[in-house]
C-alpha cells in the first residue's frame, strides 16, 4: 500500500518539469523513423534528445519533430558535434530557436574516437548558458568534483557517463557514480554506456534519478521490444531502490532451516 502510494507520487522533478518515467531516450541510430517512433512510444519516455544539423539543401532529412511532439514527448536538444564552449553555446542558441525550448543537453567532446566530454569547456559553457536562461543537463565524466562545480554553475541536473557513448559496457564508473549520487543536490541522470536493461536497473538501484538510453535500444534486434524491456528495468530498479535493498554478506545465510533428517528419523 504505502509502497504503491509512494510510487504514484514518485515523480522526478527537473527545473519546471515533472516526469513519471525515469527513462530518457535519444533519437539516434534507429534504422528508420517508424521504428524510432514505435520504440520511443514503447519506452514510455517523456524526454527525448535530438541533434541539430545544417540542412543539406540537396537531400533534406525528414522532419522528426512533429511525431515526437504529437506523442507528447518533451524535447531535449543536444550540442553533439561541439568541440568547445564557443561552438556549444552557438549550437545551444540555434537549438533554442529551432525547438523553441530552453532545455539543453550540453555535450562537448573534442575527441572523435571515444567522444568523452571536456570538463573545462563544459563548465565554461554551462556558466554562460545558465546566465542566458537555459535549463542545462550537462553530459560529463563521472567526476564528483566537476559535478559539484556544474551544480554551483546552475545546471538543472548532471549526466555522468557509465562508459563511452555507444560502448554498451555498463557502469564502469560505478564507484564514482555512487559518490556523485551521495553528494548531488540536483538530479543525477546516468548517461552513455548503458547497454542492457540490467545496467539501467543497477543505476536506478544505486539511487540514480534517471538514465538516458539510446544506442542499446536503437541497435537491438527488436528495438520496440528492447525499449519496453528498458522501461520495465528502470521501474524495477527504481522500485527496488525505494523498497530498500539488503546489503551483501560474505558467508551464506540459510533461507531454509537446517534440520538433520536421519537423526530426525
Amino acid at each position: 500500500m504505502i509502497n504503491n502510494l509512494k510510487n504514484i507520487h514518485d515523480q522526478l522533478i527537473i527545473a519546471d518539469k515533472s516526469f513519471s518515467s525515469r527513462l530518457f531516450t535519444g533519437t539516434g541510430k534507429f534504422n528508420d523513423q517508424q521504428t524510432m517512433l514505435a520504440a520511443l512510444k514503447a519506452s514510455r519516455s517523456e524526454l527525448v534528445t535530438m541533434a541539430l544539423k545544417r540542412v543539406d539543401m540537396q537531400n533534406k532529412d525528414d522532419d522528426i519533430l512533429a511525431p515526437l511532439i504529437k506523442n507528447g514527448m518533451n524535447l531535449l536538444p543536444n550540442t553533439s558535434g561541439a568541440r568547445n564552449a564557443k561552438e556549444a553555446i552557438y549550437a545551444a542558441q540555434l537549438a533554442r530557436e529551432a525547438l523553441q525550448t530552453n532545455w539543453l543537453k550540453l555535450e562537448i567532446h573534442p575527441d572523435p574516437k571515444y567522444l568523452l566530454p571536456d570538463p573545462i569547456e563544459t563548465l565554461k559553457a554551462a556558466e554562460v548558458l545558465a546566465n542566458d536562461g537555459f535549463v542545462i543537463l550537462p553530459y560529463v565524466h563521472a567526476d564528483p568534483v566537476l559535478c559539484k562545480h556544474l551544480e554551483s554553475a546552475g545546471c538543472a541536473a548532471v549526466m555522468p557517463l557509465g562508459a563511452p557513448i555507444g560502448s554498451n559496457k555498463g557502469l564502469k564508473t560505478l564507484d564514482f557514480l555512487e559518490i556523485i549520487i551521495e553528494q548531488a543536490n540536483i538530479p543525477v541522470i546516468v548517461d552513455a554506456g548503458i547497454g542492457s536493461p540490467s545496467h539501467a536497473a543497477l543505476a536506478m538501484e544505486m539511487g540514480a534519478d534517471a538514465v538516458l538510453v539510446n544506442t542499446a535500444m536503437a541497435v537491438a534486434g527488436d528495438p520496440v521490444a528492447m525499449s519496453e524491456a528498458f522501461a520495465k528495468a528502470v521501474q524495477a530498479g527504481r522500485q527496488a531502490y525505494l523498497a530498500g535493498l539488503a546489503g551483501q554478506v560474505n558467508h551464506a545465510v540459510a533461507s531454509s532451516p537446517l534440520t538433520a533428517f536421519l537423526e530426525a528419523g
Partner: protein
Amino acid sequence: MNVFVNERKTEIPQGCTIEALLNLLESPLKGSAIAVNQSIVSRSQWSEYKLNDGDQISLFQAIAGG
C-alpha cells in the same frame, strides 16, 4: 539578387524576408534555425527581416541524434 544558403548560391527577389526564403525553399519553419552572416536571427523576426544581396545564410534543422 543572390544569397548563399548553406554555401549554396540561391536567387531571391529584392526585399525577400527569411520567412519568404523558407517558403521559397519549401523548408519547414518548425524545427529550423537561421543565422545570417554568423548571427542568429530569432524566429519572431523572420517575417520582417529583409535579406541583402550576398548574405551568408545558415539554415539548421533538428535531426535524429542521441
